[in-house]
């Protein structure tokens, strides 16, 4: 079955949208109509222009081209979404694997720890962490990852629990293969597959949470374009100068929508496989 037939028409469109955003983000300096302004250079002679050529999405309070700002903002959003998921995996996976494999006291302690983090209202914890760390892209990523890893820890533990009783793992253990080797060589690769699908689907919600932090002023440092922050800055001029908030707001929405639709399609595809 080819990728596209597995994804179906909706999934294919979603994938195309995600790919387009990725492409725009990576090639921003070449694709943005005003790359310098996208990166933050002010142009105060043209402030608050409504959408019309050459500024297809208008300009902001410092006269910067909104389209370029939104394209550059995609870099921050996509990378924060990806980083959140990666950092969370890096923390959650080992914890979940150790808990599942070692069992007993370890399992109990580590799982209660994840319970604590899961019981904490997620956005509140993220805001708390971000405020403690101060604004900045990496700090925002860490703040969200703190609320994110427990899910992966739980998933990894569940995977390991089923894998542990698999004949080949049992066999390896009986042959005297060391625990760390079994975990790394046999359990990890098998557990990674379902987790990575989940992780791919989580990029959307992750960047949505990151954009909420950035809306609260806890995102990337200015003048870096950051969607949530731009929506917030434009709020004071909304709806009179609607383009200011609408452009980045729609960008977050469409990208998160595409990720969600892609996730659905992936899940449906898996079910078809099964």
């Amino acid at each position, binding site marked *: 079955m080819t990728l596209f037939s597995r994804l179906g028409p909706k999934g294919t469109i979603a994938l195309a949208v995600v790919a387009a955003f990725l492409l725009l983000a990576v090639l921003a300096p070449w694709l943005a109509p005003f790359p310098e302004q996208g990166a*933050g250079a002010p142009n105060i002679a043209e402030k608050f222009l409504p959408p019309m050529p050459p500024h297809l999405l208008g300009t902001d*309070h410092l006269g910067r081209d909104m389209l370029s700002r939104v394209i550059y903002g995609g870099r921050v959003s996509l990378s924060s979404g990806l980083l959140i998921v990666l950092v969370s995996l890096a923390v959650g996976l080992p914890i979940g694997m150790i808990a599942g494999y070692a069992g007993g006291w370890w399992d109990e302690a580590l799982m209660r720890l994840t319970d604590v983090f899961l019981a904490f209202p997620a956005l509140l914890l993220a805001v708390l962490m971000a405020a403690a760390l101060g604004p900045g892209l990496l700090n925002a990523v860490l703040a969200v990852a703190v609320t994110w890893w427990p899910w992966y820890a739980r998933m990894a533990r569940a995977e390991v629990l089923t894998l542990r009783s698999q004949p080949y793992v049992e066999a390896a253990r009986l042959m005297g293969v060391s625990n760390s080797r079994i975990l790394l060589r046999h359990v990890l690769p098998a557990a990674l597959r379902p987790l990575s699908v989940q992780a791919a689907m989580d990029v959307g919600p992750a960047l949505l949470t990151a954009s909420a932090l950035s809306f609260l002023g806890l995102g990337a440092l200015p003048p870096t374009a950051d969607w949530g922050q731009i929506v917030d800055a434009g709020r004071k001029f909304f709806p009179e100068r609607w383009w200011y908030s609408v452009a980045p707001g729609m960008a977050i929405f469409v990208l998160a929508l595409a990720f969600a639709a892609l996730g659905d399609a992936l899940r449906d595809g898996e079910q078809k496989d099964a």
Partner: protein
Amino acid sequence: MKRRDVLKSAGLAGFAFLAPSAWTIAVAQDGSRILTLANPTGFPDLDPSTSFSNDGLVLANVYEGLTRYIPGSGDTPAKVEPVLAESWTTSEDGLTWTFTLRQGVKFHDGTDLTAAAVKGAIERTMKIGGGAAFIWGAVTGIEAPDPQTVVITLSSPQPLDMIAAAGFAAWIISPAAQAQDSAWFNAGNDGGTGPFRIDSYEPGQRVIASRFADHWAQAPDGGFDKVSFEVVEDSVLAQNMLEGGQADWTYGLPYDNLESLKANPDLTVVSNPSFETLFGLYNTKRAPLDKVKVRQALSLAFPYDDVISAGTAGLGSRAYGVLPQGIWGHDPDAPIPNTDLEAARALLAEEGVTSLDLTMTYATSDPLEQVAGELWKANLEQLGINLTLQPMAWEAQWEMAKADPAAAQDIFVMYWWPTYVTPYDYLVSLFRSEEAPNYNLGYYANPEVDALIDSGATLAGTDRAGAEAAFKAAQRKIVEEAAAVFILDKPNIHVTRADLQGYVDNPAYGHVVFADSLSRKG
């Protein structure tokens, strides 16, 4: 019928069960006699002894001081006006001040204003020692020889008439209220003599005050019966309330919205210079900012005019050093730099600086400071300097600056405004050398400047001209040595309903409305 109207009537039908009784009828019963002030912050402390924040808006209508400061404008010089004191004299050495109190003044609890009450009020403030109590720092004794006379003695000469006019810590409190603690005041009680008395207080929401019938001054015709001090933190909502007639006054709306507000016939935009000035303190303890020429170069690279036009819609004014216009000691001929990238480049070359990484800290969610940073950054980039803009909560920004100058920020951007109208406050707080930094967050230390500030302070009580000369000299030195980049003097922009009469903004009292002098047209 336009599309929008169709939508509107369809929507109206749909929401008929919610059809607004309350919020459109607005102030149904005689709303014209209620003044609604939409204040962008809460009122953190209603204790008149310790209040040192935006609570001044409420307190200035409920309490009165001995005097009031009226700033000069054009050719009219500034003056100190009698309020609870009718007149005052000072001894030749400036150490003894005698105030004669106004007759027939009553506190809100019905008791009479006496010299003993004044003595008790100031002593309460000094004893608690919170907020701006330090303005009474030089007071050594307060006597009440008779009910109408208060004699205050000082350890050093001070302009006590101006100190008594302060917007903080100078309020006169009734003897009964003097015995109360902070919680009593913050539960919505008051003990003032002012034209309004507090009816109710909902923290974070509003203070409602009504006219005090026995106030010593005649209420103006058509004056307001009630004042509602509303806490409206969201500027979008504040603007909406002004436009809809649900509020009479506000400030803090985005500068970029003022054009459309000015075009609205229902609204008046009142623009005044303020005593609030914006600047960035250079970390003079850290290389290469310890070199005067490097600091001068950075100041030469600052886009002063662009920040005024893009950040304040052209309403701010150039800062001539740290003292804004309207404060005595302001120096309109100060040798301030103008934006000149070539000159900046030359100075940097002299010091051998070719590339540099600097960090500027400023308050989170202050759009003006951010605009200043972004425009400056663009200029500095052309000189090979990379400026990192680091927004921080004020508390965190301040904490970092106080901890260790060597590890602190390179540039500390902040506002300053005076506790009472004196140049001393700006200069001593920000540029007089400090052993442990408190507000001198550029760690500037120059014995010559210290001496000038001190001599100005000693002369202030007796020889105003001499003091002014000393303060100006100190300020010149600070400007020449580029201890800070003086960004701009902030404009005071207040938006009122057009039918509000008698509104005058007094920059000496921050964002205070003296509700007593207002009335509604028609």
